[in-house]
């Protein structure tokens, strides 16, 4: 039992913050605990949360992905070109395929062409987004006739919205992949010490490619849900997402130097960002002042983490 608590380790701070925020929110507005409000929090923040799962994996191997917003927009636009076929299955499959492929290309560039991931994804961020614009002529497609596609954001199973179910399912799947599978463990080893991982027979390159590919897949899923939620597939979607997503991953304990971070941390961080947004909305603050507050919280959390580490030493 004690060991389990210790295992929570780096996430304790986050959990404490989360509960403090929730208590605070309840005192400010009783509406916070309303079932609809909780649903709403998860719905709003889950799009970025899903991308943050992918980015956490990329950050665990010690790389960074700035192209997430572009991949989300491009993959949806690619699927959206086939909206006229009236087949949800085709559109969804093409969307997921395009996202996965873009992620794979990023991985290929980082591993085989040895371009640092910051520059590689900075480049692909521009390339992929503008390829999406050229492909669609900058115009949105409307998937409102595709029932299954729309259900991914608007449907309910029983009382629970489908996007919330998707979020929970994905968090379970990625937690299992990262924490318990061989692939997940090799990600940590590669990120922590890539020489040691090579010597112990792990293929660094394939681990990195897997991380980037999964990240691409996450982006396309998130983009799909966002497009369904808005009822339009817009190639301008996702500008500036990369920053919020990186913020979530860092808040969740991922380090830019690799080898650190966990999906559990990212889940809690996602919820924290959601609760903060909701809380500030309840307080009546504007969207832009929320950005400032979130920036301060990120710096404060990183400072807390750093000084906590110093104290332990």
């Amino acid at each position, binding site marked *: 039992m004690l060991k389990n608590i210790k295992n929570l380790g780096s996430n304790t701070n986050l959990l404490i913050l989360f509960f403090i925020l929730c208590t605070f929110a309840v005192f400010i507005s009783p509406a916070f605990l309303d079932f609809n409000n909780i649903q709403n929090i998860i719905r709003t923040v889950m799009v970025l949360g899903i991308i943050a799962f992918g980015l956490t994996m990329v950050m665990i191997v010690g790389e*960074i992905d700035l192209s997430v917003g572009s991949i989300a927009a491009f993959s949806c636009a690619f699927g959206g070109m086939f909206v006229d076929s009236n087949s949800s299955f085709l559109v969804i499959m093409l969307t997921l395929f395009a996202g996965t492929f873009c992620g794979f290309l990023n991985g290929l*560039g980082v591993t085989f*062409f*040895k*371009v*640092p991931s*910051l*520059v*590689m994804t*900075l*480049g*692909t*961020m*521009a*390339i992929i*987004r*503008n*390829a999406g*614009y*050229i492909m669609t002529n*900058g115009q949105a497609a409307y998937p409102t006739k595709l029932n299954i596609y729309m259900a991914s954001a608007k449907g309910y199973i029983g009382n629970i919205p489908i996007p919330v179910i998707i979020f929970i399912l994905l968090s379970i799947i990625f937690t299992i992949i990262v924490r318990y599978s061989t692939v997940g463990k090799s990600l940590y080893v590669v990120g922590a010490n890539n020489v040691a991982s090579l010597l112990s027979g792990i293929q660094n390159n394939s681990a990195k490619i897997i991380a980037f590919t999964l990240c691409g897949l996450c982006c396309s899923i998130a983009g799909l849900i966002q497009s369904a939620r808005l009822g339009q597939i817009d190639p301008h979607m996702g500008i*500036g997402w990369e*920053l919020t997503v*990186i*913020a979530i991953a*860092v808040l969740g304990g991922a*380090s*830019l*130097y690799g080898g650190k971070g966990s999906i559990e941390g990212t889940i809690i961080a996602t919820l924290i960002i959601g609760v903060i947004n909701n809380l500030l909305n309840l307080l009546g603050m*504007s969207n*832009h*002042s*929320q*950005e*400032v507050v*979130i*920036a*301060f919280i*990120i*710096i404060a959390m*990183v*400072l807390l983490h*750093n000084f906590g580490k110093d104290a332990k030493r």
Partner: protein
Amino acid sequence: MFKLINNFFSNHFLLFIFFVICLIGTFTSEYFFTVTNLQNMIRNMAVPGLLALGVSFVFLVSRIDLSVGSLTIFGPILAVSSLAFLGDIFDFKVLIKGNQYANSAMYLVIVSLITGIVVGVLNGVGVMYGKITSFIMTLAMMKALWGLNYVLTHGHAYYLQIPTFTWMGTLNIFHIPFMTWVYVIMTIIAAFIMRYTIVGRRIYAIGGDEKTARLAGINVTFWIISAFVMSSFCASVAGLLFSSRLQTVDAPLAVGFELTAIAFAVVGGVSLTGGRGSPYRAFLGTIVMGALFSLFSMWGLNTWHRNIVVGIIIILVVMLDQRKNRFGRI
């Protein structure tokens, strides 16, 4: 002799590419080699060039600065809105109808520059004393400034059509725009500082190997903070030029400038890992990319195609740089 030529060629390779681009431009478009277009070309280089110059200082100490884009317009916005706030209290007129700024240009310039320095110090202190990775620190700073830009302007643009301020954006001296003069002079000063003074030597030493520099008794903390201050200072100068050219400051204006700045510096051969690069390299990157942008608009390529080409160029340049150390070492 051959070695000398070879050396010259490898060090100034981009200069050669710049002339090739200009030649191609001259042959493919009758408007490329006209005074107006050349003036436009070098005028448009000034703002991203200054940003690239700034971030190259931070790159030299193997850190990164993402906050320059938001900072570019944060200076003028803070100046205008703070003076408007003071004006409400002490009852003097700052904004006349339609958010038109009508007060001292001097105040605008001074507050912008001080803002730049303060933001640079904050970045540097966060990175060195707070031990926050520079990527995260400047990312958070960028988001905070971006949000503040909207909060301070309430989403409206401020118009700065005061003749004492807008001459910076429109004046030509010897047919060369004032903005370009500022950029070139700042590059020359920066190049001089980096090459012949203690500042440059310290910064290159830290970029080469931070641990060794620390053991050699260099005050690493101070010099890295000053690299951030130089970057932010360049950004606020760029912001003044930018807003005087547009005669407007508006919150959504300078979005994405940090990426352009990084692209320009990287193309010039400033290494992201520190210790390699110089103001001259940032200058080379700026003129090559500036000429390329001008060429694209001559050809009638739209922004979408242009951005794709820029993305490909960044990746290719870094890839070649990784493969063989082609651009030499300064």
